[in-house]
């Protein structure tokens, strides 16, 4: 009798433990993905980025500076080439505006154009708006664990407003930095990959400074973002991210 009840208690403890283990793991995964998606922004940041866009028809190099605050505020402005100097994008919550200095106009990106290319790159306006919500819109499971890395699969929550059907992250365990992210469409076809490179420690954080976006349906094309300067936890106020500042008049 006693033996049996002991067994029962043991069994209950086991169930309890396994439950708590899996739930704590899920929280960890969500936190991990959140950290990965916000590796370049943090609480607030100022950065200088070089972007190279390669297509079958042309190759472009852009130099940009960007500011971010929390998840919802983001401003990026082109410094070079001269022809596009001053072209800027502001994201506040779910809205995206572009500023065009040549015609001195601010243009709001309508919802129907959110899938369009941002600054001619392979990054869409949607990426700017939705990437910061991936940890909230997806459920994560651990697919594989090796000595060096985790493979984590993200499946969208049933009613989440997302564009991808599945996302798979490869994350190095030791440094907690991603090496590769695979994006699948709703039919489960791999359509885009982001590869990370040049891992360095910048203001106390270890992050990959180079990010390559590869659209798989266009094999010759890619967009490379290389962070040149990165500064975290800087003093930025919400009102910095205004339409006035988008135009560059401070």
């Amino acid at each position: 009798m006693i033996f049996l009840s002991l067994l029962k208690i043991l069994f209950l403890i086991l169930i309890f433990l396994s439950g708590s283990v899996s739930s704590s793991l899920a929280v960890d995964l969500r936190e991990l993905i959140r950290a990965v998606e916000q590796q370049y922004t943090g609480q607030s940041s100022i950065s200088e980025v070089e972007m190279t866009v390669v297509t079958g028809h042309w190759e472009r190099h852009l130099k940009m500076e960007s500011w971010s605050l929390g998840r919802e505020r983001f401003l990026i402005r082109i410094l070079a080439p001269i022809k596009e100097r001053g072209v800027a994008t502001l994201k506040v919550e779910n809205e995206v505006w572009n500023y065009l200095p040549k015609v001195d106009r601010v243009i709001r990106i309508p919802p129907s154009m959110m899938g369009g290319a941002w600054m001619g790159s392979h990054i869409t306006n949607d990426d700017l708006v939705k990437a910061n919500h991936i940890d909230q819109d997806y459920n994560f499971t651990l697919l594989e664990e090796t000595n060096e890395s985790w493979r984590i699969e993200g499946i969208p929550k049933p009613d989440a407003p997302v564009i991808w059907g599945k996302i798979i992250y490869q994350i190095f365990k030791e440094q907690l930095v991603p090496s590769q992210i695979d994006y699948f469409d709703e039919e489960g076809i791999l359509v885009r990959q982001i590869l990370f490179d040049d891992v360095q420690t910048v203001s106390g954080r270890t992050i990959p400074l180079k990010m390559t976006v590869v659209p798989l349906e266009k094999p010759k094309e890619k967009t490379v973002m290389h962070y040149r300067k990165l500064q975290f936890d800087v003093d930025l106020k919400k009102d910095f991210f205004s339409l006035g500042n988008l135009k560059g008049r401070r």
Partner: protein
Amino acid sequence: MLYQLALRNIWRNRRRTLLTLSAMIISSALLILALGIFSGMLRDMLASATEQYYGHLVISAKGYQDDRDMFRHFSMDKSIENVLKQDEITGYSQRLRSFGLLSHQQNSSPGEILGILPSQEQTVTGLQDSLIDGHYLTADDSNGAVLGSGLAQRLNVVPGDQLVFVTQAADGSIGNDLLLVRGIFSTGDIGYDNTLVLVPLAWLQQLLVLPGQIHEIAVKTDQPLNAAALAEQYRVNLPDALEILDWGEMLPQMREVVASYAVSRMIIVTILYLATGLGILNTFFMAVMERTRELGVLMALGMRPGQIRTMIMLETAIMGSLGLLCGAVVGIALSLYMALVGVDLSGTLTPITYAGGTILPRLHAVIEPANILIPSVCLLIVSLLAGFLPANRAAKMQPVVAIRDAI
């Protein structure tokens, strides 16, 4: 001799002749009008599909019409110019196309921008006739824009307002510039009214960094229903990198609509022919039938059956031709009225957009030689048949029986 006899016979009983003639005139005139209206509806629909946008033929780089890839561009050369000199071609328009974002103040909307030469575009599309506000682009306009009514409403612009257009240029840069709204068109086709903007060709070439380049040449011919054969004929003379498509290849649904329309038109036309033919048959048949007795007397006087037949055939041929001549004149006059004035039904019907074409709420006829010749020939055969049958019957009778034959 027989000829004179036939003429006298026609003249003798004027009431009968006039009755027979009027039946012929009215039926043939109405048949010609009905055929004209059917052709008019078909042409209206085809015109709305081709003359608002596509044209009858389109010359472009191979594959361009499938994906509208900005980089599939070409420039005008001698061989293309030679093709465009053909007699059947009534107009052509060089175009450059771009998709991008249009914006005015707080409003923005995606749109399709078509860079055109105003003098050329007007020979292919009829958008200049669909303007509801402002005016069309002029040849010296450097940054004007004519856009659809739905798009104008969404952007909240009227002629005189500024628009910004942003897109990616061919060198990868962010092409953006200002446009001035000149006019607003409303075609009744939501697809064009909500997205299409016409701008000067040179303006768009500069914005896209594609100097001297075009994406397509839209061509209008005087034989829209024969466009596929013309495309085949011109294809051999075009450079290899280019293709020429007719409207049926660009609007396959429209081709099916035209084909199914042709079938339903044929059914209705057959019924019309039968009804008209039977009416004429009846009148002519009875007119000869009631003369059985008279024919009997003629035979008793020594006229041979063959002569009887020939005489009646001459009579019906003379009356038939006269009737058809008058009928055709009346029919053409009615069709002309319907072609020039038409009947507007827009009070009770709204335009229907279907398969890329718009059916306008109006009755409108066109005059095609086939619509006059074919019914004329058919009705003449019917009337000859209508005369021949009773004449043949009378000619085969014994004179005595024919004289006794009472109606």
